[in-house]
């Protein structure tokens, strides 16, 4: 990409496209660090309460369906793959593939949210949503959980903000889709695709940690 220094694809404050791309990438990572801290706070709260109310967390975690969570993790990992392939298509200047991979990423992202909505609906039905109607029955052999409500508060807070990030991600994908259909991106300019890709993968990483923390570690 040895294009002339000041063509229209390079904003005037940058020397060249390479510098522009590095600025965008480092800027996005700086934002992602604030996101790491944001989710880190929730994970810390989870760790402290799990330590304090081990028995309740143990029983409450068993109510979640491991296989629904596992399915959703698969869906999200596939969406990350299609996103990575989309960025690659953008790097090669392949507009058609870029559009297809963005659509695929959106479909898998939406599928994740659909499954999440199903899980939430189930929690409402079984009175597992923290509040006046909360009532914990547990699963056979694990009924005693005086502080199960704290587990479910954290469950909804953590998966809720994660789902919110997915919705924002879908918004970004819609914007990318519009731009790629219009032909904004080329081999020489695909920063927005790369940056949105970083965001999408980050949201995937958050789920990589939420899944074992909420669904798995109190299983056996």
């Amino acid at each position: 990409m040895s294009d002339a220094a000041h063509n229209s694809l390079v904003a005037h404050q940058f020397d060249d496209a390479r510098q522009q791309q590095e600025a965008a990438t480092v800027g996005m990572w700086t934002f992602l660090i604030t996101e790491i801290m944001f989710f880190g706070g929730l994970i810390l709260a989870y760790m402290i309460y799990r330590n304090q109310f081990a028995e309740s967390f143990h029983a409450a975690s068993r109510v979640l369906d491991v296989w629904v969570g596992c399915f959703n993790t698969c869906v999200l990992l596939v969406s990350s793959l299609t996103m990575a392939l989309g960025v690659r298509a953008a790097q090669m200047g392949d507009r058609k593939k870029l559009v297809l991979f963005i659509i695929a990423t959106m479909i898998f992202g939406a599928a994740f949210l659909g499954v999440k909505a199903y899980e939430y609906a189930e929690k409402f039905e079984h009175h597992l949503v923290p509040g006046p109607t909360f009532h914990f029955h547990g699963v056979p052999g694990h009924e005693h959980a005086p502080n199960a409500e704290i587990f479910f508060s954290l469950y909804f807070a953590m998966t809720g903000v994660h789902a919110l990030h997915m919705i924002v991600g879908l918004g970004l994908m819609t914007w990318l889709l519009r731009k790629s259909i219009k032909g904004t991106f080329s081999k020489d300019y695909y920063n927005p695709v790369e940056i949105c890709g970083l965001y999408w993968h980050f949201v995937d990483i958050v789920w990589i940690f939420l899944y074992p923390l909420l669904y798995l570690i109190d299983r056996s």
Partner: protein
Amino acid sequence: MSDHSEHHIVPLKVYFLVFSALMILLFVTVGVAMVNLGPFNIYVAMSIAIIKAVLVVLYFMHVRYSTRLTMVVAAAGFIWLVFLLGITILDYTSRSWIPGSYQ
């Protein structure tokens, strides 16, 4: 390496290999969760999660092919989180060591 970052197009094979590794690790972590390892379940699950996260960061997020500056910024974020979690957990777990202190 850092001089050619924007030229680097990762081969398809790498993406599919990383994806396969992520899927295998997912099923390993689900499998291990069903086995009672006592206090070690959480360590195994978190180790696998960290390996998965590192794979995503290095390959899907292209940090392995990025400039040194990007690598340092990305690493700093995760290392700082480890400090924050580690120090807080140390505080909570060590409170009971001193009799009569605030629990």
